[in-house]
């Protein structure tokens, strides 16, 4: 049945955008936890673990996300995991995000001057106290803007999961486009929804960057 592109379809697209957001949120949490591990492995004074983290980052940042998605989508069933598009999408986006978060947070940690560590030591603080009270608060402040900036990339990249059949905003647009034969208005609507999400995030990142820089 061919029908007109109607208001109900716009509502359907907005509802599908919730899956885009949920997927991005899942990848943020999953990738964030894994990213902490990557950042820590990258900075601790033990070479083999540093190399492991570097290899991980290069592997993820040196291959296309689309390839990672397909490898997980076809690979997970082989190790006996029941896999639907959601699992493959959430897992590979989390892994993808972990490499980027790891690098962002390592950079933030290392951008805190060495003298801050020395000052803490001179005051007689333990390593944990120096990390917790002196270095981390500064590193977190530095990392917030680039972290939010990366979320824009993450939201945009959830669109690739449409290609393994996960129904989020882009896949929903394909479905509506197939039913209405009105690809131009459908995809433009999808673009507008993505724009609203991503533009808000990038403006937030800019705002945080300005505010946190002034306060320093």
């Amino acid at each position, binding site marked *: 049945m061919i029908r007109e592109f109607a208001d109900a379809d716009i509502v359907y697209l907005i509802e599908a955008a919730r899956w885009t957001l949920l997927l991005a949120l899942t990848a943020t949490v999953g990738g964030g936890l894994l990213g902490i591990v990557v950042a820590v492995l990258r900075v601790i004074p033990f070479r083999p673990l540093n190399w492991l983290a570097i290899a991980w980052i290069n592997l993820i940042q040196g291959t296309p996300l689309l390839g990672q998605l397909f490898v997980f989508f076809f690979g997970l069933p082989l190790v006996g995991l029941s896999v639907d598009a959601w699992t493959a999408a959430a897992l590979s986006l989390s892994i993808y995000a972990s490499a980027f978060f790891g690098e962002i947070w390592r950079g933030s940690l290392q951008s805190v001057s060495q003298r801050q560590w020395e000052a803490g030591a001179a005051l007689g603080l333990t390593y944990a106290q120096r990390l917790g009270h002196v270095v981390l608060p500064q590193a977190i402040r530095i990392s917030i803007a680039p972290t939010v900036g990366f979320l*824009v990339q993450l939201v945009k990249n959830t669109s*690739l999961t449409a290609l393994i059949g996960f129904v989020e905003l882009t896949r929903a647009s394909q479905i509506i486009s197939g039913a209405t034969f009105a690809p131009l208005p459908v995809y433009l609507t*999808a673009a507008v929804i993505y724009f609203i999400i991503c533009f808000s995030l990038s403006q937030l990142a800019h705002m945080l960057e300005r505010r946190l820089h002034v306060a320093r």
Partner: protein
Amino acid sequence: MSYNFKFDVLLRYVPEILQGVFLTLQFSVITMLCGLAIGLIVAMASISPLMPLRACARIYVEALRNTPLLVQLFIVFFGLPSIGIRLGANTAALIALSINMGAYGAEILRAGFESVRQSQIEAGRSLGLTAGQTFRHVVLFQAVKTIYPALASQFVLIMLTTSVVSSIGATELFHQAAFIDSRTYRSFETYTLITISYLVLTLAFRAFFAGVYWVVFVRRPRR
């Protein structure tokens, strides 16, 4: 559950993979060049004294950078035919990639222009160089040196991003994966091999760009 991994059946398809590599590089180079050309125009508009030009440049950059490439691709390939513009998959892919790259290129180039300090230009002029000579000998070298790392990593990023255009049937490396998969039914092995091929390309190009940087900018350039 046991599964026999068979990578050897893929050996027959090495020529297809190499052809895919060639096509992907072709896509990447053309995208880079067209994107930089668009980016140059947009960057010049974004630093122009005319408000409407600056506004247009900003809208272009924000619109393109805040929407997914996949949706931009679908608009060009599936959307434009309904207003009478019909494009082949490869042409649509190149147009979408170039327009997308234009937005990123504009930001990189603008940063390059702004990085050269006014005092450098004044110094050049006070040494008696003409405006053209100042641009060529003073501004250009410094600006290129500043943006080179960004351009190099952007090229690698484009190379990885081109995989997305396989979704509309444009022929490049990732498209070859679908082809090999359909012949061998070895989905996991095929996609692993293709993904690793991208990794090899990435590492090779990073090394190449680092080498070029060293030769051109680190070793003292001859006068």
